[in-house]
């Protein structure tokens, strides 16, 4: 579920595009044993099989695509916990 504030921050298309990239990067680097498209925005990625090692590859993939840099304080489980959390983090960095 996306909150109103998030929707107002970026237009619907932008959010959808970020969501799509996050899913593509997860598909490529996350090495999840499940179909990415079957996961909703709130699904727990660690419980779906994301390991701490693969988290790093996901982070590098997202940094390359968006030309952003995750700050050290963002390098926590909560940041990588779900597709929604990653979309929020990227929005924050793009702001």
């Amino acid at each position: 579920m996306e909150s109103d504030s998030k929707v107002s921050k970026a237009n619907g298309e932008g959010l959808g595009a970020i969501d799509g990239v996050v899913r593509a990067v997860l598909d490529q680097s996350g090495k999840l044993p499940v179909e990415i498209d079957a996961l909703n925005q709130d699904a727990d990625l660690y419980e779906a099989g994301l390991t701490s090692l693969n988290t790093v590859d996901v982070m590098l993939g997202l940094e390359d695509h968006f030309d952003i840099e995750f700050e050290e304080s963002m390098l926590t489980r909560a940041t990588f916990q779900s597709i929604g959390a990653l979309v929020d983090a990227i929005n924050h960095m793009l702001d």
Partner: protein
Amino acid sequence: MSSGMRTVHSADRPPELPCFANVLASVEAIGKGVLTDHVKSVDEDARFPIEAIEALKAESLLSAYVPKEYGGHGLTITEICRLCETMGRYCASTAMIFAMHQIQVACIVNHAQSSSYFRQYLHDLVRHQYLLASATTEIGTGGDLGASICALEIEGDEFSLEKMAPVISYGQQADAILVTCRRSPDAPKGYQVHALVHRDACKLDEISGWDTLGFRGTCSSGFKLSAHGNVNQVLPVSYADIHVRSMHPIAHLTWGSLWLGIALDAVRLARGSVRKAARKNTDDRDIPSLRLAELDERLFLMRSSLHDTMREYEALAAAGDDNAFSQFGFGIRVNNVKVLCSEMVVEIVGKALGIVGISGYRNAGELSLSRHLRDAYGAALMVNNDRIRGHNAAMQIALR
């Protein structure tokens, strides 16, 4: 009972608990007494240190980390670590059992107090001084604690569970075992929970024994575990959260502390040896005393790194932000403590042996370092250091 007022008062007041200095003094006394008396037979016979555990129970130390409102000592992890270090100086197997038990207690205290079942269990643990064991690793997962093959099979309110565990330390002697497993048979391998199984509802068939170089008293045999229980015995949060907040940091800090205890005792023996030589020969004491001074520098480094990480842990715990425990930087430092301390304990005991000489090499005698050395070599192997370094290597790439 002569005064009604008095009765009401004493019932209201929680039982008096000793301050930490007194707790430490009683553990020191148990170390000098019971642990020292039995360490040789525990090591030689690879037997459970029953006398030591009974002595700890008599001081209610199995509930040392249980909060005071349940009747426990309410100690901090730093204080628990100090107790591990103290026991480690006398009997590393007892210290390891104590450490592993406290890690399990911490998982319940830190993550399960929202459950009425576990609140009652904490009361019961204080009253009966239950000993808790752990079954995390599983045959077929390659040592990855974050993955399980076994799964809860739930029918109504009851679950059954079967796990092939390559080690369950003191599994036969424990009153209950905390077992990691998948939430359900169709869940992915990382979708784990932590379930408490009672020993009387759990069958353990030994699949491998425990005749090892060191830590012989931990009785860490492998078992096929078959258990059943009520679903309220499953901790109310995911194991992944428990691992990051409690299992991982507390394991590395308590283990590091008891390894420090081994190192401290080895340095004590080296110092005694140098002092003895110095009494005999006042002219030629330069080399052994220099070696001892160097050795103490290494001990200083080991202890400092441990204490530094303990302070960081306590600061995060005090801030109450569980997500902060998952910061890569903290994770790396907690891993550094494990890797560094487990390798330094081998180095320090080895250098102590060089100072003590042949008396340290003997299996018997007051200056024997045989058990210290054998125990020390286990530290890098329990959760293999290269696996831990692999995690750190990946996180280093992400770190800024």
